[in-house]
């Protein structure tokens, strides 16, 4: 499904600020895989996502999605089939446009058949309404409200809906609940789980929360210094506890205060 072969990326090559962000990363995802990504700050998790989404060209290696080589495709073309959520809930929606208009923009990914001069149809409105009601946030009655008036959690839930409104081949979640309060974060996480399972979406999720890294998905990878240092899947993952994963972290030399903190937190 997604196949990364020998992906490398160096920022500011040849200068004192040279930073090898990714070094020969290989990753293969099967259809329906839900992979959680762990790693300390600067391990290359977000750079990996940026490489997959096409935010910058990679120096080396190939990226294939469903057998198609997308290594040199610009980001806006890839976003036709790659959905993405960022940590910042403000990044995924247009604040001065209504909920309905934001959804219509997200819907355009699949509606190439629609004329660019057509407007939001009554049928689409009904569809948006129905999808919004699944979020159980009451947004279906506020479709004419400006998105800027919503809370961070509501905006992130809306962004999640927008990213999956047209089922993407791949969904990239970059700590998408980290900026939300614990209760809202849990709600968005549950929604994520539900939407991903219902639509059988292949998914990569960066998190610093060890319990949710183990609880969600079927595979976990650990990154350090721009490479994938460890993968946990199958039986080993089923038997893995938070403490053992932390020990594994130390044995790999991955240190991260945020991970240590999140491991102590009770699951909300």
């Amino acid at each position: 499904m997604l196949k990364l072969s020998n992906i490398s990326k160096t920022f500011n090559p040849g200068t004192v600020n040279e930073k090898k962000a990714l070094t020969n990363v290989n990753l293969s995802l099967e259809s329906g895989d839900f992979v959680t990504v762990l790693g300390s700050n600067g391990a290359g998790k977000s750079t990996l996502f940026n490489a997959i989404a096409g935010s910058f060209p990679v120096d080396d290696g190939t990226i294939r999605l469903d057998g198609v080589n997308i290594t040199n495709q610009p980001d806006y073309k890839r976003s036709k089939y790659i959905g993405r959520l960022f940590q910042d809930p403000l990044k995924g929606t247009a604040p001065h446009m209504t909920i309905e208009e934001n959804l219509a923009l997200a819907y355009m990914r699949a509606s190439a058949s629609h004329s660019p001069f057509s407007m939001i149809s009554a049928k689409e409105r009904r569809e948006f309404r129905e999808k919004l009601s699944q979020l159980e946030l009451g947004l279906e009655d506020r479709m004419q409200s400006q998105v800027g008036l919503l809370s961070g959690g509501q905006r992130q839930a809306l962004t999640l809906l927008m990213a999956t409104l047209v089922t993407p081949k791949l969904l990239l979640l970059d700590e998408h609940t980290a900026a939300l309060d614990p209760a809202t974060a849990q709600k968005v996480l549950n929604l994520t789980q539900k939407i991903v399972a219902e639509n059988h979406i292949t998914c990569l999720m960066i998190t610093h929360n060890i319990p949710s890294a183990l609880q969600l998905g079927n595979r976990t990878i650990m990154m350090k210094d721009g490479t994938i240092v460890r993968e946990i899947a199958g039986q080993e993952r089923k038997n893995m506890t938070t403490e053992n994963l932390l020990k594994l972290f130390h044995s790999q030399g991955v240190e991260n205060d945020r991970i240590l903190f999140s491991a102590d937190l009770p699951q909300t």
Partner: protein
Amino acid sequence: MISTAVILSALELGCIYALVALALFLSFRVLNIADMTTDGAFTLGCAVSATLAVAGHPLLALPAAMIAGACAGSITALLQTKLKIPSILAGIITNTGLYTINLAVMGFSSNVNMMKSKTLFSLVQPALGSVYKLLPAALITLVVAVLLVVFLKTRLGLSIRATGDNPDMVRASSINTGFTITIGLCMSNAMTALSGAVLAQYQKTADINLGTGMVIIGLASLIIGETLLPKGKLWMKALGAVAGSIVYRFIIAIALRLDLPSECLKLISATIVALAIGLPAIRGAMKPATKGGKSKC
């Protein structure tokens, strides 16, 4: 103090210049780009319109001016999206180049006189009587404003609005921001050029310096409109641009009545714009206790 003739002429000019305010609404407010092409595009519209009117095609002059304006906009967009030149600089570069183009369109003369030529207004004068200038000008502005509002609600319009509102999100929605910026700048400069085209035929003369300071006049009108009308839906904002432009012309008419020399007008315009854009900061400085979070458009 103010005669009917003065009111009529303020309304006429207000309607004609409203097209510039609408153009800036699209580029400055919707796309969030300060488009410095405006001055040159306005003169380009004047030049194309005058030249064609003298050649005997006063009606063809309007679409021709719009196409010319769109071309000017596309150059700015090209500089900005393909060559990655900052948007303000891209506009200034096009604007500078347009000076030569505008002179060339007018046959390398700094002005064109249309006293003996048929104009759009002289064509309708027999039928309309005393409102032969106001009615066509108002109609053109109304049609453009309605088309603009409808367009901004289409899928392409939504993409353009989102480009100005949140470029990150737009790229994640498979929209090419280079494309939406280009469409937006072509449209806004076509509107600016149309304004110049109508004005040239209105005053039966085109001059190489007609567009100087037009971006500031347009912004002043836009901001006056935003201050006067409640914030709200798109059509309200478009209406505000037109209303602001008319109010601006009345301010100018009053200033002229007060025997202010016409040379002062640009300084007055500049002051209005500086004060209007700076108003939130001025309010914030006066009331330091309250947090001033003013939202865009």
